[in-house]
C-alpha cells in the first residue's frame, strides 16, 4: 500500500544542493525574519539585506494565483532555496543558511514564467554566520546517496531473480516451492517499498491487496497469487485459478518487476528523500504489517516487517553521521530503538523465516506495536534534523 510519503514526491519546501536550506526551526531565536509579499506583479521583500547565517523569509501570497518564491544565486539562475505551492492568502516560510554574497529574490505567481519583482538581496558578512557544510559533511551526503542508490539496485536485482524462480515454480504447479519462495523474495520488495511506490501504477499492479480493489477491477501481483497458494486459508468459496490464469499472473508479475528494475536504475536521492524514505518504511510497518493485513492468507507479515525495518535502517545508517553531528541524542535514541525492534523480531525467528502472524499472542503483537511507536516518534524527526 502507498506510504504517506512516497519517496520521490516533492516536499513542500524543496531542498536543493548541499548548501541549500535549513529547516524551519520555529519562530524563536535570533533568526532574522523577513517578510515577502507576493502579488500578481510584485515580490516585495521587507529588507534587501541581512547578515549571513540562518535567514527566514515568511512568504505571504497576496495574489489570487498559487505562487512560488525563489532565492537565486548571483547568476540569477542557480536556485539556493524555494518555497512552492503557496495558495492565495497563505503564508509559508523558507529558512536558509546563507553565506555573504549577492543573491536575487523573485516570485512566480501562477508558477510559470520568469518570475516577477526580481530584486537583488545582499547578505553581509557576519560573525554569526554558520559555516558552510564542511567538506566532510558533503562527502557524507554524497556517500550516503551513492550507497543507497547501490542498495536499491542490489535489492531490485535480487527481487527480479527471486521473482523469476517464484513465477516458474508457480506456473509449473509446484505450489510448495512457490510458497517457500514467497516471503524470501518479497522481502526484497519490502526493503525498498517506498522507492517502488514512486512509480505510478506499478505498486498497485504488483502489491495490491484484495481489499484495495474497486468493484470489478482486475487483481494482479503478489497477493493475487498468495491467495491461490494459500487457498486453504481463503475460505470454502474460493476457486483455485486455472493453469492459464496462473501463467498469466506469473508472466505479468515478471514483466512488471522488470519494468520496476528499469525505472529504479540510476536513481539519485536527496537527503530529505532518504530521511523520508526511512520514515515511510516505518509507516508501512505501523500501517499494515502490525495488523496482519498485508499477508492476509500466508501470514508471513513478520518477514515483510523485517524487510521494511532493514530498508529503514539502511537509510538511517547512511545519514547517521550527519545526525550524530547535529543531534547526538537522537542518534543514540534511534540506535537503541532500532536494536529493540530487531530484538523483538529475532525472538520470532522460526526456521528460515518467522512465526506466522496468526501464531503471535495478543501480548506479542502489542509489544511490536509499542516498539514501532517507540521507534516512530524519534524517526519522524529525522528529516528535519538532517536537513536542518
Amino acid at each position, binding site marked *: 500500500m502507498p506510504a504517506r510519503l512516497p519517496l520521490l514526491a516533492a516536499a513542500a*519546501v524543496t531542498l536543493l544542493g548541499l548548501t541549500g536550506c535549513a*529547516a524551519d526551526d520555529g519562530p524563536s531565536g535570533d533568526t532574522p525574519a523577513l517578510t515577502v509579499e507576493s502579488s500578481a506583479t510584485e515580490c516585495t521583500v521587507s529588507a534587501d539585506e541581512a547578515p549571513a547565517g540562518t535567514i527566514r523569509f515568511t512568504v505571504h501570497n497576496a495574489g489570487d494565483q498559487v505562487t512560488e518564491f525563489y532565492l537565486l544565486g548571483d547568476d540569477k539562475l542557480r536556485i539556493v532555496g524555494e518555497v512552492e505551492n503557496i495558495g492565495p492568502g497563505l503564508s509559508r516560510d523558507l529558512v536558509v543558511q546563507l553565506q555573504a554574497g549577492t543573491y536575487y529574490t523573485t516570485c512566480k505567481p501562477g508558477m510559470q514564467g520568469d518570475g516577477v519583482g526580481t530584486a537583488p538581496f545582499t547578505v553581509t558578512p557576519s560573525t554569526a554566520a554558520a559555516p558552510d557544510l564542511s567538506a566532510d559533511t558533503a562527502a557524507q551526503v554524497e556517500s550516503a546517496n551513492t550507497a543507497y542508490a547501490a542498495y536499491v539496485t542490489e535489492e531490485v536485482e535480487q527481487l527480479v531473480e527471486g521473482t523469476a524462480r517464484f513465477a516458474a515454480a508457480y506456473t509449473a504447479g509446484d505450489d510448495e516451492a512457490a510458497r517457500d519462495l514467497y516471503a524470501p523474495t518479497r522481502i526484497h520488495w519490502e526493503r525498498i517499498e517506498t522507492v517502488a511506490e514512486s512509480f505510478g501504477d506499478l505498486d498497485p499492479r504488483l502489491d495490491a491487496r484484495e481489499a484495495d480493489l474497486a468493484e470489478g477491477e482486475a487483481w494482479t501481483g503478489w497477493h493475487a497469487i498468495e491467495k491461490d497458494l494459500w487457498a486453504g486459508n481463503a475460505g470454502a468459496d474460493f476457486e483455485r485459478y486455472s493453469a492459464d490464469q496462473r501463467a498469466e499472473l506469473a508472466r505479468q508479475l515478471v514483466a512488471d518487476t522488470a519494468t520496476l528494475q528499469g525505472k529504479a536504475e540510476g536513481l539519485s536521492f536527496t537527503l530529505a528523500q532518504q530521511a523520508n524514505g526511512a520514515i515511510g518504511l516505518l509507516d508501512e510497518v505501523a500501517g499494515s504489517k502490525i495488523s496482519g493485513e498485508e499477508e492476509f492468507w500466508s501470514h508471513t507479515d513478520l518477514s515483510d516487517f523485517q524487510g521494511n525495518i532493514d530498508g529503514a535502517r539502511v537509510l538511517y545508517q547512511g545519514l547517521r553521521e550527519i545526525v550524530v553531528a547535529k543531534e547526538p541524542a537522537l542518534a543514540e535514541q534511534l540506535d537503541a530503538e532500532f536494536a529493540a525492534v530487531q530484538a523483538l523480531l529475532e525472538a520470532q525467528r522460526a526456521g528460515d523465516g518467522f512465526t506466522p502472524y496468526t501464531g503471535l499472542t495478543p501480548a506479542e503483537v502489542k509489544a511490536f506495536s509499542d516498539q514501532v511507536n*517507540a521507534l516512530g516518534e524519534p524517526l519522524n524527526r529525522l528529516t528535519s534534523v538532517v536537513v536542518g
Partner: protein
Amino acid sequence: MAEPSEATDAAQAPRGLSRRGLLGLAGAGLAGLGVGVAGDRAALAATAAATGTKAAGAYAFYGTHQAGIVTPAQDRLHFAAFDMSPGSSRDDLIELLKDWTVASAAMTAGRDIGDFGAAGGPYDAPPEDTGEALGLPASGLTITVGFGPTLFQATDGTDRFGLAHNRPAELTTLPHFPGDLLEEARSGGDLCIQACANDPQVAVHAIRNLSRIAFGRAAIRWSQLGFGRTSSTSTSQATARNLFGFKDGTANVMAEEPGAAAEHVWVQPGEGPAWLAGGSYLVARRIRMTIETWDRSILSEQEAVIGRTKGEGAPLSGGTEFTEPDFALAGRSGPLIGPHAHMRLAHPDQNHGIRLLRRGYNFVDGNDELGRLAAGLFFISFQRSPEQFITVQQNLAGHDALNEYIRHVGSALFAVPPGVRPGSFLGAPLFAP
C-alpha cells in the same frame, strides 16, 4: 474575585521553553506557590459565577494537591492506565514524569504542548502538538497522575525502578470482592492519568498527547472515556444521575466541607512514606450495568434497590434529596430503606463513618456482541486510605441488591502523589535521595 484564567497565569511557562527545560519554570511559577485548594476554590467560585462560560475556565496545575480531585467534577473524562516499557529505567521514568509535567501545565492552561505547538513548527517534522484542541479554551481541564502497585514492585517481585522500599504498605492489588468478574486487560497498570474537562475533545487531546510523549517509555494498558459525571464534588453543582437514572453521590465529600478533605481524602504527614503526604489513593472500577434488565424492572423495585426516590432523590425514609436518611424508620414490612438497599450499604453510618470522594463517570462503549449497550459506570473514588474503599465495597459486594444489575469488570488502585511545586515535577518527592 479572580477570573478562572487568572488561577493559572502564574503557572504559565514562557512560550518557547523547551519541553526538557523544566527547571527553568521555577521563576515563572513563583506566584503559584501555595495555591492548592484555595486556588481550586477561587476558580470554582468564578466558574460557578460565570455560568455559560464555564468551558473557558482553567484550573491551576501547580499547587499543594493535584487538581482533579476536589476540583468540581467536570462533565467529561478520559482516563488511561499505562505500563512502563520493558527495559525502561528509573531515569526513563523520571524523564517521563518531567515531560508529562511540562505538557500538563501547558494543556491545563489551554495552550499547545512543545516549543512550536500544533502549527508553528518545521514543515519537515511532525507537529509537536496533535492540534485537535487548537482554538478551544482550557475547558476546565485537569490532569491527575497516579502510581500503581506494579510501579514499585512488578508482579514477579522485581524492583525495576528502585522504588520497592518506597511502596506504601496499602498500595497492593485490591482484594477479590464477591461477584468480581475482572478482566486482566481492563485492570491494573503502572501509572494512570485522569484527564477531566468540560469538552470531550480537550480531555482526549490531553491523553493523546501524553501517551504520545510516553512512546518508548510507557504504553497505554487500558483506557476509558466517560461522557457524563455521576458525582458532585461541590455544593455548587447539581447532583448528577447515573445510567440507572438515579441521582448519585448525594452524600459525597464536598469541597466546601471544612476539614472533610483532610479527614477523608488527603494522606496526612506521618501516614506511610513521606513522599505521599498531601496525596491520595485513587480507586478505579469499571462497572458494567445490565441496563436492559434494569429498564424493565418496576419503579418501586428500582427505588427499593437504590433506597431513594427516582425523581427527587430523597431517601425512602422521607424528606428531600439532602435529608439525612432514617435507616430505622419502619413501614408495614421492615424498614423503609431495606437492608439490601444500595444507599444504606454505602452510607457512612453503615461503614464506621467512612466516606469516599466519588468522582465517577457514565460510559457507553458501543454495544456488546448481543446488541446490548456496553454501558456502565466508571467508578472513581479518592480516599486517604484504600481501606476506606475496601470496607465499603466488601459491604456492597456481599449484600447490595444492585449487584443483580452490575458486574465489576475492571479494577485498579493508584497512589496519587501530592501536587507539583512550580519548578518541580509530578511525583518528585518519590525520587528524592
